[in-house]
């Protein structure tokens, strides 16, 4: 460990979803705010246990979809006026709109998809390559079969010794200090 590295948090390992859910609830009950759980699959109920608010992602998707819908409609309206093709009553707002439906529909979905993946990236602070957690020995099993509870050093209640003992006491294995 080089001298300019600071303590980033404490990580402890659990080997099944039941234990980590119980542990997360206990850590939360103790008053810790900046905690996180890393697991190979989503654990039902964990977001409530550690107090993560619902994701705003659907609003971002809705925004993308709405932009696609209105944008595609207006674009077709504008191009039809820009170079009018006066066939079968067209152009005209009401006459042509039914024919534009397919493109409106497709662009709505297309932009909604981009917004969803883009929103997913932004909300998760992706893309990145590095995480201090990768330095923890055994953390690579977080994507295999182990479950990790992390208490951030930024938590007001964080105290390296006390927090460490507490994590060990509630059943956390291999409690490790993570530096960054």
């Amino acid at each position, binding site marked *: 460990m080089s001298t300019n590295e600071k303590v980033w948090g404490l990580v402890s390992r659990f080997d099944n*979803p*039941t234990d980590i*859910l*119980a542990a997360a*609830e206990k850590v939360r009950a103790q008053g810790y705010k900046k905690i*996180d*759980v*890393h697991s*190979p*699959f*989503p*654990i*039902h*109920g*964990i977001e409530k246990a*550690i107090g*993560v608010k*619902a*994701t705003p*992602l*659907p609003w971002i*998707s809705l925004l993308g*979809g709405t932009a696609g819908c209105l944008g595609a409609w207006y*674009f077709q309206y504008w*191009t*039809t006026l*820009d*170079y009018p*093709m006066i*066939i079968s009553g*067209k152009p005209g707002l009401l006459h*042509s709109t039914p*024919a534009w439906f*397919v*493109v409106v529909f*497709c*662009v709505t*979905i*297309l932009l*909604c*998809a981009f917004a*969803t*993946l883009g*929103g*997913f*990236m932004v*909300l*998760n*602070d*992706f*893309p*990145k*390559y590095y*995480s201090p957690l990768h330095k923890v020995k055994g953390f*690579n*099993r*977080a*994507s*295999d*079969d182990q479950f990790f509870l992390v208490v951030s050093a930024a938590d007001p209640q964080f105290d390296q010794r006390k927090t460490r003992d507490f994590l060990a006491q509630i059943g956390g294995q291999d409690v490790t200090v993570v530096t960054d």
Partner: protein
Amino acid sequence: MSQDSYIPDNPNERIRLVQGGLNFSQVTETVASIAERPTSRKWLFAFLMAAATAGLVPGSLAILFWNGTGVWGLNNPQAWAWDIVNFVFWVGIAHAGTFISSILTLTRQPWRTSIGRFAEAMTVFSVACAGMFPACHVGRVWCAHWLFPVPNQMDLWPNFHSPLLWDVFAVNTYATVSVLFWYLGLIPDLATMRDRAKNAAAKIAYGVLAVGWTGSVRQWMNFEKAYQIFAAIATPLICAVSAVVSCDFAGSQIPGWHATIFPLYFVCGAVFQGFSATIFLMAICRSQLGLKNLITMRHLENLCKITLALSFIVTYIYFMEYFIAKFSGNPYEAFCFDNRMTGWYAVGYWTMIICNGAIPQLFWFRSVRNSIPAMIVIGFLGVFGMWFERYIIIMAIGHDFLPSSWEGFMPTFWDCSLFLGSIGTFFTLLLLFVRFVPVISIAEVKMVMPEAKPKHGDHH
């Protein structure tokens, strides 16, 4: 083999989706090791075969671009023969992947998890093959960007009232959304591959593609929400894409094409074909890749049942299309259908009826639904029959209102070589996928295992 022996399905007691008593770690190992072990001779042989066949594409395209679409067997009424047949054919194969990952997600079918990834890969690669055909068919490929509304000095815009333009938007949206959906689902598994990687190159490659995934609560929340949204928007899209493709035909006035049933016809046909292709490839892959515990007979049986249901729908449409043609009293329509059954293309018509309507009926029998060789044969015939369905639909243009303009179609060497090349391309991409990417969604399979549910104690 023991895990192949099928225990009768007691409705009260479903068979576990993961067999062989695998735990989380063994699930990871089973799937990830396929992409990690050294290249096998079998894979290399298959890859070289596929790549050699795919090698027909550049040559065929070079000849096509140099000479124009005349090198195909096109003639005056048959202006877009095999080209559009193959396009609709490949779009059809794509449909199973999206159907499994979107509609089966929304209807909460947990068994989809171990077959979704593979089927989605088929979607992505077959849409890529499909895109090849209309892009080349424009003849002057250097003007292919005119399909899109690109500002130009002539101040011209595409005709937004035309089904052919709708098709461009529908297929491109479908391709893009399929790729994004597929990639989203891959992210947690790419992180698994990164965490298991032994050498630096693999670690960096998977690490970059995994975009920093660590499986935190917030990441999983965003992931699940994003997945649901993708499933919700892909569901109408899958119904729309073949429906829009069918408007290329239904929007014309040619007998045999001008039918309101076409959108439904194309969508159901495409899903049937996609499921047939999935059964065919899945039945081969599960034993080759050692996935019998994850892709169980229950999975395959479910696929067979869906295929059977879809076969009924397409058969109903075949009859309904014929009935309406006769009932309409329109002599041109009636002739078109009689001509299909007894004329030049009768072989194609009856191949279609037998492969898509009759043979899938064998899936009524549990013994057939549990026989791998039977699935491979019936799955293949479903794909084969669906190619003929598009063939006989599209050939209808050769016998329209005016007998003096009638003309049949004979494919040339370059027709065949491009089609063969597209099959090679599909298998090349699929083999690369099998070699480097987890073929089953590892995280999603773990999610549906009973061990994944926290056992609630007294705190609830």
